[in-house]
């Protein structure tokens, strides 16, 4: 089965090499050939015609893939447990700005709710009503990433597209920020319905922001929305009841504005010739 030669004594012949690659050798023979191949360049060269390069490549890639694949980050694993698809989880977890936005939103909401409930002794609502509805809005604005977003030019020219990515990030921010702020709302002083009522402006400010952002970009749009809402709250503190910003007439006005904004978004999506959607 082997060919005697000079030097190390022998080389594996074709029959042996064919048996080795097909896996038909007995274990002891296969181990012996393998041991020999490690040290013998000639036999490794002779082995080449017996191997299927494509299969070998695939096998090597698959081995390498397993060895080199790093465990998925905790954020990806968490997102997948929550039911998100794997590619979406990768996109969300990879965005540093987004993670920062989540944390910032959560801490802002917590901080102001705490201030409102702890130090007002049940008489002051405005800090919470000022900030809590803006938490999702600012979170959404930050979901755009900054204008110097390192990946923006790649996101904007990918089939996935910037519009879809912004929407995915927006939903992610809302899912994380809203329940957290809602819990804080429950610990508020004042009428119990306020704990839920602030969610109205919180949600309705988002389409207003998105519509404005399609004209002027996310940063100026979020500034306009934040100042506008601050104006509403300030007015209530000076001239009206503390709960006025979340009472039904304001809610109805905001609903009208939000509906108008959604219509503007729809029209712009159909008429604009900007590449890749609105943003």
């Amino acid at each position, binding site marked *: 089965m082997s060919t005697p030669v000079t030097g190390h004594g022998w080389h594996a012949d074709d029959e042996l090499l064919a048996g080795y690659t097909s896996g038909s050798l007995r274990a002891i023979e296969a181990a012996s050939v393998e041991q020999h191949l490690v040290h013998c360049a000639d036999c490794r060269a002779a082995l080449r015609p017996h191997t299927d390069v494509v299969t070998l490549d695939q096998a090597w*890639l*698959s081995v*390498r*893939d397993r060895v*080199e*694949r*790093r465990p998925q980050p905790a954020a990806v694993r968490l997102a997948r447990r929550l039911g998100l*698809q*794997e*590619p979406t989880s*990768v*996109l969300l977890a*990879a*965005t*540093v700005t987004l993670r920062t936005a989540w944390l910032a939103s959560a801490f802002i909401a917590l901080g102001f709710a705490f201030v409102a409930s702890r130090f007002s002794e049940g008489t002051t609502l405005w800090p919470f009503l000022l900030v809590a509805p803006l938490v999702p809005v600012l979170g959404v604005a930050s979901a755009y990433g900054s204008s*110097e*977003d*390192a*990946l923006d*030019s*790649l*996101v*904007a*020219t*990918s*089939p*996935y*597209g910037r519009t879809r*990515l912004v929407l995915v990030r927006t939903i992610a921010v809302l899912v994380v920020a809203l329940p957290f702020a809602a819990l804080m709302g429950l610990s508020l002083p004042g009428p119990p319905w306020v704990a839920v009522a602030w969610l109205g402006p919180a949600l309705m400010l988002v389409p207003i922001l998105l519509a404005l952002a399609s004209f002027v970009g996310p940063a100026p749009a979020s500034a306009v929305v934040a100042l506008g809402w601050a104006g509403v709250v300030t007015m209530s503190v000076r001239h009206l009841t503390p709960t006025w910003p979340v009472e039904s007439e304001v809610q109805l006005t905001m609903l009208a504005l939000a509906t108008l904004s959604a219509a503007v978004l729809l029209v712009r999506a159909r008429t604009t*010739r*900007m*590449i*890749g*959607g609105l943003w």
Partner: protein
Amino acid sequence: MSLVDLLGVSKSYGGTRALDDVTLTFDRGVTGLLGPNGAGKTTLLRIVATSIAADRGSTRILGHDPTASHGEVVEARRGLGYLPQELGFPHDMTVFGFVEYVAVLKEWNQAAARSREVHRVLDLVGLGDLAAKRVRKLSGGQRRRVGLAQALVGNPQVLVLDEPTTGLDPAQRATLRRTLSTIASESAVLLSTHQTEDVAALCERVVVLAEGHVRFDGSVVDLVRTAEGRVWLSDEPAETGVAAWRTGTGRHRVVGGPRPPGAESVEPSLEDAYLLMLDGRVPAPDAVT
């Protein structure tokens, strides 16, 4: 139909016209865009990459008009790879993580296939062993290659590379040349550069842009030919040409202008031809569009 068709394309920024009535088509092979700063190279590449839309004219990428509808632009982008001139990298991403992120954006949704594709493109640019390294720890040339790797994901039919050789050393340029020549057998590769050596080494076709216009469109050999009989080697310095400099041998190379006294005519280089083309003293050859 070509892979890329631009017909009468113009683009302005404020009052500045970056591209003016440019008509070009691109098929398989490597085309180099050569031109000074502000010539319109990056604008042209961004239009092809669907990053911006032209103000006027018609753009077709793989037969799709990217300004027509969302569906059209997505179809065009499915066949595109793009390396922007400036590509920032998120602070904490690894090489693998970065290219994988782009692969997801390019709709590689199946995790195992995506992982194999990422390894494939990293191997192509010689970064297979650095997959787990953080991008911020790489050298400038290595980062440029990471940028190139992401552009290669999915074997795009149209590959748009804005100054891909920036930061690469000679050995890395040679590797890039091999990689691009393989890809160009199936794809249209468009690259911009300031370096005439890059064009000579990498490109079959060269387009010279100046002030938003196409000055030359043809083969590298044809561009060099436009300078024949207009480059001199003189013992004395001469100020009459488009450009003149002292060479390593102590003699003076004079490009364009009348023959300096006692000077001998020499074979022009691509750089000579490019300088003359920008100066506009060479009559436009037939290949100019």
